[in-house]
């Protein structure tokens, strides 16, 4: 069951100042409305994982680890590997996070990132079959929030594709008796696209890019769009109890598309 959340009490003065600044095109942290915070990506930070990446957007820090194990394929997709995306809002990351099973926010986050990867066809799922219909690779993408300062979706989506891009895929050999045996070899995980999510927030009729946590707490709604390397949209999610006009959505789409291209150019140069 979903319930209207308690809003983190943000000093009214701070909120008022934010809104006042926005009318003059500025933000609390000095950014312009369509400025993104500094992005940092560290790949391969967890050696035990098949792939990993730590992404910072300002003070927002998200670690994604990829584990690849074997399992049964879905009965209706016998010739495809499987993908599972999971997010944990560990209590380390914010004083209002409590330990426990995933809540609607972490489930929504994981599902948005999942859709970006899945719908863009980023992973070549057909190449993850070890024994058709019986044994396939299962790719686990685990999103770990280390510090929450807003815009977890973009940080998580960028960390997820970064981690997948540096993931190694164990090679299995099928022996004479038809059993799969793990070898010592690894191939790179076959990646075909580089989906990038970009999030905008609406605060008092202003659209800002890459909202900080203070801004998310004041915003009425957010809109995330994920773009493929060809500039197609592969996932959208509006969240929050605010609304958008059709025109706002179309404009937001243009801004997000441009930013996604820029991020890809800066950090994923091979995907242009």
């Amino acid at each position, binding site marked *: 069951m*979903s319930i209207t959340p*308690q809003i983190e009490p943000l000093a009214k003065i701070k909120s008022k100042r934010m809104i006042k600044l926005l009318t003059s095109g500025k933000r609390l942290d000095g950014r312009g409305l369509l400025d993104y915070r500094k992005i940092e990506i560290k790949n391969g930070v967890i050696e035990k994982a098949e792939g990993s990446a730590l992404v910072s957007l300002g003070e927002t820090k998200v670690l994604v680890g990829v584990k690849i194990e074997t399992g049964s394929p879905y009965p209706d997709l016998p010739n495809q590997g499987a993908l599972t995306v999971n997010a944990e809002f560990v209590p380390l990351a914010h004083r209002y996070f409590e330990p426990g099973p995933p809540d*609607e926010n972490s*489930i929504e986050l994981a599902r948005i990132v999942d859709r970006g990867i899945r719908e863009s066809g980023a992973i070549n799922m057909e190449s993850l079959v070890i024994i058709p219909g019986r044994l396939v690779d299962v790719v686990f993408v685990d999103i770990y929030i280390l510090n929450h300062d807003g815009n977890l979706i973009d940080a998580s989506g960028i960390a997820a594709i970064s981690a997948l891009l540096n993931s190694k895929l164990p090679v299995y050999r099928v022996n004479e008796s038809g059993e799969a045996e793990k070898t010592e070899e690894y191939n790179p995980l076959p990646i075909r696209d580089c989906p990038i999510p970009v999030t905008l927030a609406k605060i008092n009729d202003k659209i800002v890019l890459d909202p900080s946590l203070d801004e998310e707490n004041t915003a009425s709604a957010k809109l995330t769009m994920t773009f493929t390397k060809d500039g197609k*949209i592969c996932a959208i999610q509006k969240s929050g*109890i605010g609304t958008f006009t*059709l025109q706002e*959505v179309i404009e937001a789409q243009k801004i997000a598309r441009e930013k996604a291209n820029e991020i890809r150019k800066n950090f994923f140069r091979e995907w242009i």
Partner: protein
Amino acid sequence: MVTVQKLINEEGLRVDGRRLDELRPIRMEVGLLANADGSAYIEHGKNKIIVAVYGPKEAQPKHVSLHDRAVVRCRYHMAPFSTDERKSPAPSRREIEISKVVREALEPVIFTEYFPRSMIDIFIEVLQSDGGSRCAAITASSLALADAGIPLRDLVVGCAVGKVEGKLVLDPSDIEDKLGEADMPIAFIPVLGKISLLQMDGMFTEEEFIKALNMAKEACMKIYALQKQTLKEKYLQVEKEVRESLTLKE
């Protein structure tokens, strides 16, 4: 075993005989549950969805209440027999996400500020599911809210646009959703001209995206007319009953 199914035939008609921009049959009803403060039932294609609204009532437990407005609780839940394969009764991750986005789609039309420290419950039960069940659930939920007498800025209407064999199709059914290339559900608030739910998965070019948005909006206006008709009939019926009962008393 693999049957290649064509989803659009040479005449441009879909598997269920619809044109690309045609809605499935829709039937609505309000006020059918005796215990709920408001209720509605919708058949939208093969979707069969029933919604009950309880409230405004005291928010329980207290720590969830807000001092300046009502909180809204929303549960989108599927009956175990609503799907092709039996669904476990425990809420799935999909149901948890949809409960959230449906709440966020409905909350903007409710005058929650009239009911501080209160709670409004929206309970959605999908008795049979088809493509676009979250949209139909939104359409029915705003009727149930109206039936409960909760002050609303407007009704909310849901409709999806999909992409099948490279073509945009309105209001995709289950099979079109499953085999198609994209699905974009939206919720629209006609009087305010606002979008309160927007999701998409699949693959849209910018042009397709803009066209799909407009198709969905147009369709929402048609469903909106049905919603208003349903409420009007209910109102007339209630009026008639009241008049008769007054006549009897005289």
